[in-house]
């Protein structure tokens, strides 16, 4: 199928879940796992770096350091010893956003995730982020109640959970971050004023007649109108 490249001549040896395989050097980790014969159900998702399903931990043989990557975005390296971590138990208490408020300087993060105060700033989370986000930075911002900063720093989080797997105080930064972003966007950013106006107009039926007219038009009439329509610069 179209997703499998023709194997290049150069092969590298990697170790997948404890077994050694020869795979083409040009493949991503995900495609290498499939090349080796695994038909994945877990540890695979959008295949484009957006969904966080394919978090992978690896070492290079002979070196002790651990590295972190998304299997769909990382090209194999010789001597890679890897395992996927498709899911990791992460704390997410029951909460209802409607019962929380971030206005007037309140910081609901401390109520929902009181354990956030145990963060001692080791920065392991940041080192394990395949998106290269400043995870510790956003955790600190959440702790301080600076939701704007936390929202900005955590925005590109794809919730793969690799930081959760590494945190020595067992925190779940991605879950804290999404609560922070939702509170920030809902409570600290003004609602779009033009949107409020438009909703009122629609409810008053301002556009009903025009829409009805368009719906009743023949294809030719519509084509003409479309061709002549003005386009905003």
């Amino acid at each position, binding site marked *: *199928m*179209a*997703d499998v*490249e023709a194997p290049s001549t150069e092969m590298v040896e990697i170790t997948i879940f404890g077994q050694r395989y020869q795979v083409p050097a*040009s*493949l*991503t980790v995900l*495609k290498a796992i*499939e090349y080796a*014969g695994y*038909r994945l*159900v*877990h540890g695979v*998702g*959008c*295949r*484009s*770096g*957006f*969904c966080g*399903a394919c978090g992978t931990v690896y070492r290079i043989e002979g070196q002790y350091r651990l590295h972190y990557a998304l299997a769909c*975005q*990382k*090209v194999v390296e010789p001597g890679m010893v890897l395992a996927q971590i498709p*899911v990791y138990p992460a704390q*997410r208490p029951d909460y209802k*956003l409607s019962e929380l408020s971030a206005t007037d300087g309140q910081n609901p993060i401390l109520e929902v995730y009181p354990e956030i105060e145990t963060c001692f700033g080791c920065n392991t989370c940041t080192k394990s982020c395949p998106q290269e986000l400043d995870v510790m930075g956003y955790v600190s911002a959440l702790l301080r109640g600076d939701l704007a900063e936390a*929202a900005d720093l955590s*925005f*590109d989080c794809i*919730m793969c959970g690799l930081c959760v797997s590494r945190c020595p105080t067992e925190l779940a930064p991605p879950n804290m971050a*999404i*609560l922070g*972003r*939702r509170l920030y*966007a*809902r409570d600290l*950013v*003004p*609602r*779009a*004023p*033009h*949107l409020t106006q438009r*909703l009122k107009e*629609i409810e008053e039926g301002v*556009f009903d007649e*025009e*829409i009805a007219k*368009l*719906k009743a038009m023949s*294809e030719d009439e*519509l*084509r003409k*109108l*479309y*061709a002549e*329509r003005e*386009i*905003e610069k």
Partner: protein
Amino acid sequence: MSYTEEMRRSIAKVEATRQRRLDEVYPRVGDEEKRELLENYHPDYNAEAFATLKVGPNAGDRTPRELASLLEGRPRVHPDKVDLSRVDLEADVLVIGGGGAGAPAALLAQENGADVLLVTKLRFGDANTMMAQGGIQAADKPNDSPAIHYLDVMGGGHFKNDPDLVEALVMDAPFVIRWLEEMGCMFDKEPDGTMITGHGGGTSRKRMHSARDYTGAEIMRTLRDEVRSRPIRVLEFHPAIELIKDKQGRVAGAILYSFDRNEIVVARAKAVIITTGGGGRLHYQGFPTTNHYGATADGLVMAYRVGAKLSFIDTMQYHPTGAAYPEQILGQLVTEKVRGLGAQLVNADGEQFVYPLEPRDVEAAAIVRECRRGKGVVTPSGQCGVWLDSPMIEVKRGPGTIEKALPAMVRQFKRFGIDMTKEPILVYPTLHYQNGGISIRPDGSTNVPGLYAAGEVTGGTHGRNRLMGNSLLEITVFGRRAGRAAAEYAAKAEVGELTLDHLREWFDLLGPEAAAEELELAPLLLPDYTRHERTDEVLGLE
């Protein structure tokens, strides 16, 4: 992984013409030229790639061969072997599919009093929604209106769209944006709350709302978090493989399959909403795809077998700008927002060949034409492409614009040694979206009682071609509508004795080929990218 010498020579030409192209506006195509371009170069017009359906509600209609063989495929379970008297799960409303249409459907069904079960093939949120980068349309600026949006949608769809569905789409749009805003979805805004909006292909007003270039991901994770905050049951890694009816002919549940336990699960429900998305992983005509691993058209197959009518299944959307290089990310989406921000498409000589914001089918056909007439750039693996001149964005809008507006894109190319803020990127059309699907009414209902559908799995809203930013809109608008309508229906509905008689009839329709197991098993559930050379040979599988 950075560019080869030969590619660099072409890039030099792109750089040489950049300053001149700043003020150069390539003319839009006229009606006649558009038709010629599409007929000669768009994959939908490649007659050999299509088959005519022989059985079912759309018998006589054309659809890509790969889809036809699944629609007329062999069910995974035989009706005689499933004991429907043993019901494992029960709900008022069963939502099949955990993406951007399924989540709003579940939320609205729950709000309207239904006990909701959402089942999904992979993880909750594993969907094309998650990868939708560019934006969501809504006519909420003073110079815009739902009527202007309506006209854009109809024009984009070649005037074949269902007017009632388009009306629902454009009139609900501002309400959906407010709904998302109130759930804490982080749209790009000015300090006073004004939405930062831009153009997409085929829009006549700047109505594309975005959340950097993670718009779909931001919407999906917000919706998912909200579902998790409600009393809604979610069952992951349990794809539906067949719908169940009752003796009165109403859809009344589904047979689920547990991947991990290799087990059948019977779920009974008063109403079922299908939100399973599209079928890019069928790789029509061998195209690479932007789609999620799970996009295998399962919902179409299941709905077709219970008698649901499909529409526009002969038209697929090829996103004009899929990554053509490096090979590791072949076919992955390069968001239309890149062109929305001002990047032009140019050929190997650094010359424009199409207005950069035509509707997607026109853009895709123009790129195919450029490659066929030898004006493309060929990569070491033989893939042809054209340049998307991304550095132009910063010439127009100042340094730092790209990093701020397109962080996901920058990251993706940087991982392979390409700096898209300084170098153009090579693109070629990639299979992106299923324009058609299950025919629905504006409330998400279908021609089969008890069966609802929303999102990419449906057909009619976009006619023959969808505009950018109308799919994130469609899933939320119609997900909400289907959820509400299904809950109202379920409140009054009775479920009779469960049956799979429709599958017996289906086997009869298929004839002896099905019994002889000659037909493809459907739904497909997952693509197979494994390489089992030896096994396939020995066991005679290929």
